[in-house]
């Protein structure tokens, strides 16, 4: 069969299966992003607080999840948490619960993202002069409002390039979740390649699709970047 029939939609082609894979990849990355961002932000707050125990705890987290291979983290979550849950439910007699590969991917990639994002946020925090916070407090804003209205808008602008990089890594790392059975782009292409015996065509298609997602993201990030700089003088 020629390439167009194989990649077509419907009964004879794999186009619809791979398209479903694109949706899974995109939704896994989009679902992981907020977890990683919020958790990374909290970690950065913990790292720059003057509570030494809090610093230490956040640093232990970062050291572990920045140092482990993403694939190993994924397996630790998938097999470790599931076997822990399994022994917990058999011991207590509760109904069986298990993490699906999607949720495992979300957790594993989320903690990895958070570990890296905390460093990005931390250096962005350090780039904001102290006077900004003091000025906000002097105007009578509460601590929460200073964070929300004064620090955060500047923080996003400084942290955006670093976070954009992490987003690209996240998008690429979702391909690892195919190893534990998530039917994302890579897994669907792998199945198609095995059945049709056309591995080059299908893995090539998968790579092109990832490339398209990356290009799409860089356009979106460019838009966000312009939005964060809307207060600056136009060039």
């Amino acid at each position, binding site marked *: 069969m020629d390439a167009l029939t194989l990649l077509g939609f419907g009964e004879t082609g794999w186009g619809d299966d791979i398209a479903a894979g694109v949706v899974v990849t995109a939704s896994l990355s989009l679902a992981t992003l907020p977890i990683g961002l919020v958790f990374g932000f909290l970690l950065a707050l913990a790292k720059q607080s003057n509570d030494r125990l809090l610093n230490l705890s956040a640093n232990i987290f970062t050291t572990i999840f920045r140092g482990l291979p993403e694939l190993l983290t994924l397996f630790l979550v998938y097999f*470790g948490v599931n076997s822990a849950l399994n022994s917990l439910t058999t011991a207590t007699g509760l109904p069986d619960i298990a993490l699906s590969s999607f949720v495992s991917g979300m957790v594993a990639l989320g903690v990895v993202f958070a570990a890296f994002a905390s460093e990005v946020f931390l250096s962005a925090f350090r780039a904001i002069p102290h006077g900004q916070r003091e000025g906000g407090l002097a105007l009578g804003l509460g601590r929460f409002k200073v964070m929300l209205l004064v620090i955060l808008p500047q923080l996003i602008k400084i942290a955006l390039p670093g976070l954009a990089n992490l987003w690209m890594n996240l998008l690429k790392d979702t391909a690892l979740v195919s190893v534990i059975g998530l039917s994302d782009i890579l897994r669907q292409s792998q199945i198609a390649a095995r059945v049709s015996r056309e591995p080059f065509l299908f*893995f090539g298609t998968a790579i092109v699709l990832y490339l398209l997602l990356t290009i799409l993201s860089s356009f979106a990030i460019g838009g966000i970047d312009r939005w964060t700089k809307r207060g600056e003088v136009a060039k």
Partner: protein
Amino acid sequence: MSEATLAPEKAPPALRAKPKLGGIIAISVWIAVAVAFLIYFVRAFDVSLIERFGADYLSGLWITVSLVTVSFVCGAVISLPIALGRMSTNPASRSATFAFVYFYRGTPLIAQIFLVYYGFGQFRGFFETIGLWWFFREAWYCGLFALAMNTAAYQAEILRGAIQSVPKGQWEGGRSLGLPRGVIFFKVVMPQAMIVALRPYANEIILMIKASAIVAIITVYDLFGETRQAYSRTYDFQTYVWAAILYLALVEALRHATNWAEGRLTRHLKR
């Protein structure tokens, strides 16, 4: 710009406040995790497992280290012409190298490895005629090839950034001394660029150690591959914990070595 004229701000005196609730809770969670792990480990610890798989883990560790070392060195060699192409004035070589870098940085390594290992096998006849089939037949070489090309793209960007961070005056100074371009590049610019590039290079090695675990999927028995095999034979979760400890030790040792090396190499820059 009023900010620039202000004296550099000093950090406020560190408050040696008593640890607050948040810190106590956070650290106690970690202590609880550590204790739970210790209990689990003591209970699950099995000497026969070490006797059975200890040597496998060491050989896996060796495969990981040698794979990363060889592909890093190959990548470094490939990255030099790519970095030069990225900086060249010729638009054709600029766009070709840009496409190379964008392709490798914009797609997942695991997909690249699959394309090489499974995809290239489809062109067996072609590789046999050009005499390269022995190379693309072996999973180890395929992993090596994919990792080397991938890291070449990243290293080209590191190298380019480092070379461009050296001020132009260094080139001009060399020219005014009558040095040929090659000598200026290797004896004047590169030593300064390498100091800038040291940390990114170390980061790249760490990223490669982590990424090299992927080759286990295409049946290379590196540290992760041996781990997967040990797990599939015993269904004992501690096999993964051993791998985690080994990987963490490797990465942390490298990180500390880099800090030490950077301090040592930049000691002439400190005042």
